[in-house]
């Protein structure tokens, strides 16, 4: 407090400066100077493209038009209308919904299970376990895809060998229209649960132990304590985890690119993958419209999840 008043008086004390600028102005200039590199990069490489993408989605811009921008016309909402009749896009949207609605709960369940175990029984080795479960998160998706493609091979892959031991004839995972998507979902859950586990563990450790002890005295069993204490207290953390994971999964792209190339029969084609495809065909206008449709879906999902998981008052 005392220091603050000294600072407020400081300009008066140090009045005669070379440039004649007040300390306040000088500091403001310095602050904007500090902001300059970030701002320049952000405006050029993020804000500009966000707006450009929106504009492009209302035009008929193709890659061949880049040398001759005057040939580009505004076409209004045509690209968006086309989305609704594009079977590949509609299938990609349905696949993406499937991936999100199965993948998010699965990832949360796995992460919560491990986090509860780590929180409850384990004091020694906690750091070791946490590290072990976290490793898939920091592993390149391309490397992960290579390994899983090997694991899931129909004849010689370890997964089907293991199933054979149990008397089950495993499917041709990545070339079977029914099983390709579940395989990608399990892989995504495996890869992403580590991050949620760390988040949930922090949330669990913030729950006061006294609540559990009091409930135990009142005769509540382990399940009742989990349902009545852990889950409600963890609600904000679960919300955060669901939103973050849902936003990530809405954009899933690398898994199908490296594992299945969107197949078989487009059953693992995602919206991001469809954008990438259209970009590859040079249809910049249509790719932009798709990306804005995805952007809107992300914003809507965020709001819906906030509403659903809002603390009940």
């Amino acid at each position, binding site marked *: 407090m005392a220091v603050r008043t000294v600072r407020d008086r400081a300009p008066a004390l140090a009045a005669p400066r070379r440039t004649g600028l007040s300390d306040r102005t000088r500091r*403001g200039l310095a602050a904007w100077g500090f902001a300059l590199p970030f701002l320049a990069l952000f405006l050029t490489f*993020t804000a500009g493209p966000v707006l450009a993408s929106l504009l492009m989605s209302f035009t008929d811009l193709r890659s061949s038009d880049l040398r001759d921008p005057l040939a580009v016309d505004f076409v209004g909402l045509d690209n968006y209308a086309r989305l609704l009749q594009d079977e590949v896009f509609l299938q990609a949207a349905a696949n993406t919904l499937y991936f999100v609605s199965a993948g998010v709960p699965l990832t949360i369940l796995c992460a919560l299970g491990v986090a509860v175990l780590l929180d409850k029984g384990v004091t020694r*080795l906690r750091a070791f376990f946490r590290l072990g479960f*976290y*490793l898939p998160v920091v592993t390149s*998706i391309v490397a992960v895809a290579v390994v899983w493609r090997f*694991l899931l091979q129909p004849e010689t892959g370890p997964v089907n060998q293991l199933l054979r031991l149990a008397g089950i004839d495993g499917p041709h995972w990545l070339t079977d229209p029914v099983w390709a998507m579940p395989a990608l979902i399990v892989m995504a859950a495996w890869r992403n649960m580590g991050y949620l586990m760390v988040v949930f563990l922090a949330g669990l450790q913030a729950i006061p132990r006294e609540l559990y002890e009091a409930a135990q*005295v009142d005769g509540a069993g382990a399940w009742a304590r989990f349902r009545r204490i852990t889950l409600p207290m963890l609600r904000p953390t679960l919300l955060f985890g669901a939103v973050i994971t849902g936003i990530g999964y809405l954009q899933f792209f690398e898994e199908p690119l490296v594992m299945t190339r969107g197949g078989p029969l487009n059953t693992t084609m995602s919206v991001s993958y469809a954008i990438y495809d259209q970009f590859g065909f040079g249809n910049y206008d249509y790719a*932009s419209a798709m990306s804005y449709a995805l952007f809107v879906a992300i914003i809507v999902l965020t709001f819906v999840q906030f509403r659903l998981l809002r603390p009940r008052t």
Partner: protein
Amino acid sequence: MTAAVSRARGGHRARRSGGNRVWAVYTALAIALAVAGSPFAWMLSGSFKTDAEIRRIPPTWLPDQATLDNYRELFERLDFPRYFANSLIVTGAVTAGNLVFCSMLGYALAKIDFPGRQALFALVMAALMVPGAVTFVPLFVLISNLGLVDTHLGMILPFLAGPFGVFLMRQYISGLPDEVIDAARVDGAGELRIFARIVVPLARPALAALGILTFLSTWNSFLWPLVVAQSEERYTLPVALALYSIGQNQTRFGLLLAGAVVVVVPVLVVFVALQRFFVQGIAMTGLK
């Protein structure tokens, strides 16, 4: 009084049934970890197998005749040393840029009272929400207009200063004591000097966390380098591995798994060595 009683009773019960329960928890965790870790085990062991052994039924856990042929092929016949160097150049530049630029703005937002501060912070928070898919197409058009397609600079520039880094640095620097900075201002030190001499040394844990996070995400980044790199000389490791794994070598799993090891091991080493800072980084930004 009641709390004390309950604690005593709870403690008693826990001690009686504790042994078995702790055992069960450890066993469950060990099994879960073995399942979660098995892809890494297969990756490592497969990378030392010959193509014939990798196709054998039933599969072998450890290679019968461990061979370095897969690694030899990666580094001698294929151009993996170059891809490795490309990955290092891009990752190093992006990490350095984020450390410098994000901490500069982070300091300004945390400790300087200036007009526009609130708006600038709101801008950073909004930037956090923009998904990559939305900027992707115009960004490529921009990069190609700048003549940066198939250059390292084209891979580096768009990611040189991310909003996440600004947010992380701002959070940490806000927690540093005002007194030190105010005292330096009273002594007539300029903002640049305060930043370089006082804030940077004090913010070292946050810089370490930001450095690791940026290193990891850039090293693993795939889509943008894939689009910008057109010739083999510019491939980063993930791009090269992805293109090999869908090209003519796609069934040569020994070779591909060795490639995966080369991509994964450097980050695992960095991560395990520095994970202390990493956990701090997650805590620092309030969950993320």
